[in-house]
């Protein structure tokens, strides 16, 4: 059973990592209009904490997108400089949508694997039952 339970853990770690990624996408989308906000980029790394044989994934340290912030012209806010511009965020909604879709697809793939492992072990037990 250890192979099955290891595989279950790996699939669950993938789902957890994708959920974390979706959290960051949601944060980016929510802060689209926040002045000076830099979009968060989720990184993934191999988790070899206590057992090197287990290939679970975990979200790595969050990186901030260092691309230039959008210059927004609006002289009214107190943030605006002499020319009437202030720093917006560098979030691109289309990119965030694509990232969210990618996270969803990856989550689904991990979920299918999880379900398949359960089905495989169930059919193994079924074989024993006959």
């Amino acid at each position, binding site marked *: *059973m250890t192979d*099955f*339970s290891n595989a*279950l*853990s790996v699939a*669950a*770690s993938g*789902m*957890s990592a994708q*959920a974390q990624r979706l959290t960051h996408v949601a944060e980016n989308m929510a802060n689209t209009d926040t002045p000076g906000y830099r979009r968060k980029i989720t990184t993934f790394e191999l*988790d070899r*904490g*206590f*057992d090197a044989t*287990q290939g*679970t994934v*975990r979200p790595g340290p969050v990186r901030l997108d260092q691309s230039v912030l959008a210059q927004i012209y609006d002289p009214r806010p107190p943030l605006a400089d002499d020319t009437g511009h202030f720093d917006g965020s560098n979030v691109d909604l289309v990119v965030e949508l694509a990232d969210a879709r990618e996270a969803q697809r990856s989550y689904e793939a991990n979920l299918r694997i*999880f379900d398949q*492992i*359960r089905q495989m*072990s*169930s059919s193994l*037990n079924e074989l*024993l*039952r006959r």
Partner: protein
Amino acid sequence: MDIRSTLAAQAYQPQRLPQAAPAQEDGGAFTQAMTNFAETVAQGEMQARAAMTTGADPHALVTALAQTELAVQTAVTVRDRVVEAYQELLRMPV
């Protein structure tokens, strides 16, 4: 309570078992399997309790419950086979 704690508990389990179940002359493997099964079920219950009370990671809960399900299925199947074999013996004409 996240997935890593579930994984850690699993990784430590083999090292903890020898003390929990001292090797006997016969039935040692079976005792060990039963201890393993009991540990898996207890861990599933612990995760379920943590998820309900403290809002722990649902992925850890799903993993623990799936593993518990597999363990219970295996145990039930093995028990059925053992009982079947015993009844086979009872039916034997003497």
